């Protein structure tokens, strides 16, 4: 079953006095439970693609259907609700709210969803333990390493069991050993929880971990290989 269908997707935006054609007609279908890496050089359009899929950015032309809904026709309120309930995010850096503890960061999405406090606590402690951070719940982000912070971000992204996790270069600021550990965590969650992961990356290690590698270049899909 297709979770995400992108058809003839175009995205232009203005940068100063020039128009940038970030996406020039992308066609893509991603099924449930996939572990996909979208790779390409800087400026190839991979982050823009992720932003458009999640409704963070609008489209210039084309269709984006996610979980049966047309993302391009949704109101801002509907998009917010979709992101809150169906999508988890892991960003490249400074992912977490620095004034909250690791546990509170993990609870944050559930808090926005209105999950009761006891359930939030139980789920967050469980997921922190699954990403290897049992006992770190009380720590604030500035007192944690980059790898630990990214694992907290992953825990926050998946704790609500979203349909899709979008990870924008999650290993970019990590050393290879820490990056590998983080990918192990995500792969295990993908396999056990059947959560779909889409990465934007130019890290070869992320490409190696993924079962499907989509290469983009100049705003178009260059290759799409499943291993």
């Amino acid at each position, binding site marked *: 079953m297709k979770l995400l269908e992108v058809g003839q997707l175009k995205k232009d935006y203005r940068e100063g006095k020039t128009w940038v054609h970030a996406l020039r007609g992308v066609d893509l279908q991603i099924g449930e439970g996939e572990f996909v890496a979208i790779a390409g050089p800087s400026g190839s359009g991979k982050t823009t693609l992720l*932003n458009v899929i*999640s409704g*963070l*950015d609008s489209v210039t032309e084309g269709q984006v259907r996610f979980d049966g809904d047309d993302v391009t026709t949704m109101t801002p309120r509907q998009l*917010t*609700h979709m*992101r*809150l*309930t169906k999508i988890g*995010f892991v*960003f490249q*850096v*400074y*992912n977490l*709210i*620095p*004034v*909250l503890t690791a546990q*509170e960061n993990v*609870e*944050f*999405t559930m*808090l*926005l*969803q209105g999950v009761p*406090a006891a359930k939030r606590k139980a789920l967050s402690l469980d997921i922190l333990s699954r990403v290897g951070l049992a006992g770190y719940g009380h720590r604030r982000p500035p007192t944690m390493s980059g790898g630990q912070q990214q694992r907290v971000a992953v825990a926050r992204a998946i704790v609500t069991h979203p349909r899709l996790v979008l990870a924008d270069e999650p290993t970019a600021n990590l050393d290879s050993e820490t990056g590998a550990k983080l990918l192990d965590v995500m792969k295990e969650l993908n396999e056990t929880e059947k959560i779909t992961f889409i990465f934007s990356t130019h890290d070869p290690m992320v490409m190696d971990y993924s079962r499907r590698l989509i290469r983009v270049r100049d705003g178009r899909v260059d290759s799409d290989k499943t291993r």
Partner: protein
Amino acid sequence: MKTLLKMAWLNIWRNKRRTLILLCAMAAGLIGVLFTMGFMQGWMNQMVDNAIMTYEGHVKILGKGFQRNPVIENSMPAMPDVEGILNRDPRVRAWTERLTAQGLLSTPTDSRVVTIVGADPDREPQVSVIGEALRDGEFVSSKEPLKIAIGRTLSEKIKKGLGKKVVLMSQRLDGEIGSAAFRVGGLFDTGSGSYDESTVYISLADARQMLAEGDRVTEITILLHDIKDSEVVAADLARELKERGVEVVTWKDRLPFIVEMIKLSDRFAIPYYALFYIAMAFGIVNTLLMAIGERTHEIGIMLAMGMHRRTLVLLIMLESLFLAILAALAGAGIGWGLVAWFGHRGIDLSAFSAAMEYYGLGHVLYPVLDPGRAAWAVVAMLAVALVFSFYPAARAARLVPVEAIRRAG
């Protein structure tokens, strides 16, 4: 909500120095507002108290027409039954009868227009400060007729001290001129030079003999335990004495100048206080805008994750409210303490003695803070913080997540 409160609280301490500077500025503003309020309130209270305690009392029963035209023809017969009414009323602290008239005080070398107050020697010191204001000699007495108490200022001007003779003249009730010679028995100093120079006291019995026939009085002056009861007591007395053809007035009717001064000072104070609050508002807006600028990336992430914009607005407004609460606690605490300290010690304004006397004040001003007004000042501060935080909060809520995330964290 608990997490939002925690986030708001911790967010304000992310830049401690900036927060402390803003808190100091806000607290200083509130201290300024409270101290000014205390100063003005002390000034007005002292003006009213001095006027009430020197002569006016809180409530007066006057002969018909005496308020408009204070002449002996508008005096009234004594009302012995009123004594029972006043003595039974628990709101009444003390009262006295007076027979007053405008007259001429003469010495062989000088003549001056004065207000002659025929006072009950026993009751008068309970109603006014005249007993305490005596500096030399004694107050008038029913046992020693034809004694007069005059102000020290007047005594110096007419060069007549204790034991010297002066002559009083005034129109009698029957239209003839009444006069009598009095010996100076007491010198008083109320602190108001103009009052001391223009008012003389003789006994009620002497005044009746000189000015009227029978037991007439021009006023019954009543001092209450609480000034706030003035209107109610006056209304009750007016109802009870409806058939007597008398007027019952309060200190507000008697002292329109002071009442207008109070109104005027309240009106002038509003824009003055508003300046403090406007400066405070700019401080809040500036600080929040800076804080939001520094947290743009983080706000973008929260919005991307699905945080509702109204929740973000609430978060930022809570931050502002926390700042205001902290500043209010500090400002109100220090402001209140400062007013209390000066209220006890007094502010020496003898350098401005002429002006102080003009306003019926002593040389030392005692600030007083009205809790109701102080509460309003604090509530206004919290309201300003909330209202003016809406602009930066709304700006933050209008951020486009994808653009906000691009900014460095």
